[in-house]
């Protein structure tokens, strides 16, 4: 038995060597990409060079984008991002759905071509179906039609939707959806208005 294990040793060393090699190659590629990004861009208005810097979530999602996300990495990303979620300080989740509809329709904000003094939009319709009257909706994200009508408004449901809007990576690592609250794209009030768009029975989403 002991001999068997010894005989397997060179094979295991080879496997380990190959794995380590891939790690090194991946790291080398990352350095190459980061250096090329730094050399290939220049600041323009509000789009400053620090926007090229990646946080840990972005680094890990980039590293594993072409393959399957290992479960330990997925766990790490969800833990990091769950820790950022702040419920609304006054405990009120629902704002004004009309404000929410405007935020969902607005695609500007944070681009070098945008006015930084104006509030950013959420651009929800770029990826999601929401109200029935808006037929120009994208399909990168799932349909959110009848969102509140289907789910109800229990405290757990509201808290889960708030968490999704606040930081999409808390429960879906490397989601395509921006982390609207955590990254400061939308304010608490804007997030509340979007919550109302999703949950208010009078909202066109639920009509």
């Amino acid at each position, binding site marked *: 038995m002991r001999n068997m294990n010894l005989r397997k040793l060179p094979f295991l060393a080879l496997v380990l060597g190959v794995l380590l090699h891939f790690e090194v190659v991946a790291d080398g590629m990352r350095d190459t990409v980061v250096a*090329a990004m730094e050399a*290939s861009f220049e600041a323009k208005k509000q789009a*400053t*060079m620090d926007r090229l810097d990646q946080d840990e979530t972005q680094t890990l999602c980039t590293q594993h*984008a072409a393959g399957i996300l290992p479960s330990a990495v997925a766990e790490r990303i969800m833990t990091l991002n769950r820790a950022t979620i702040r419920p609304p300080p006054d405990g009120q989740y629902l704002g004004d759905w009309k404000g929410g509809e405007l935020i969902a329709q607005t695609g500007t904000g944070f681009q070098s071509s945008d006015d930084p003094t104006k509030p950013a939009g959420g651009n929800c319709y770029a990826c999601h179906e929401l109200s029935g009257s808006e*037929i*120009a909706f994208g399909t990168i994200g799932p349909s959110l039609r009848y969102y509140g009508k289907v789910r109800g408004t229990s405290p757990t449901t509201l808290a889960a939707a708030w968490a999704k809007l606040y930081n999409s990576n808390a429960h879906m690592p490397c989601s395509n959806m*921006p982390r609207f609250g955590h990254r400061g*794209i939308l304010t608490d009030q804007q997030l509340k208005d979007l919550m109302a768009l999703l949950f208010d029975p009078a909202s066109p989403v639920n009509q």
Partner: protein
Amino acid sequence: MKSIYGCIRGLLLAACCVTLAWAQSSTEEAIAEYRAMFGDENPAELWQIRGEELWTTPRGPKNVALAGCDLGLGAGIVTGAYAQLPRWFEDTQRVQDLESRLVSCLTDLQGLDEAELLKSRFGDGAKKSDLEALTAYIVAASRGHTMSVSIAHPAAQAAYDLGHGVFYYRAGPHDFSCATCHGESGKRIRLQVLPKLLDPVGARYAYTSWPGYRVSQGELRTMEWRLQDCFRQQRLPQLRYGSEVAIGLTMFLAKNAEGGIMTAPNITR
């Protein structure tokens, strides 16, 4: 009774499907209609004609035409050149796309000032871009040619690998990368169909139809313009013209589009 209800439900469902299909294709249809209105006329031709003049007329401090400009197939040869770009160039010791190659020719051969050229790299109304016009002329000379880009040179392979790496690079306040919008097929932003640029079908569809006359801007836009505008929407800083990343991504897309037939300059939304 039940069957009548079933029938009505079926009809309603069919009506819904038709409406949805109409909504999905209305933008594409509107552009097709707009194209048809021109008949065989394509506004890009205005850029092509001006580009041909710029190519054949002696200009710059050295007062020479661009007959000595080698786009990869030999000095002065434009036919089919774009379908094999980007490529490795011995004289500049660089991998270059068409636009950066043109900058080399205009500065080295004609003695024009690079900074001045780049100031008007993208046309804006009355202020037309010579680089966009030259690009339109040269790309049009590859219509009907099959995309065939070589990555045999190590530097060309490195450019492709860099483009591949950049494609997945997530950054900025919104966590966007190229893959966010172009990593899957069959998706849309609003009504705009998004090609999956990792696959031959999507890459060919996108690459062979650019540059294009952009209806919404009244300008002819090149691949360099297209890429820097993607990064603007990604909320990243300004992509530099002819930079390593611009050329790497172009190499990645051009190679993925291998086998596609060039149709550009096209009319785009």
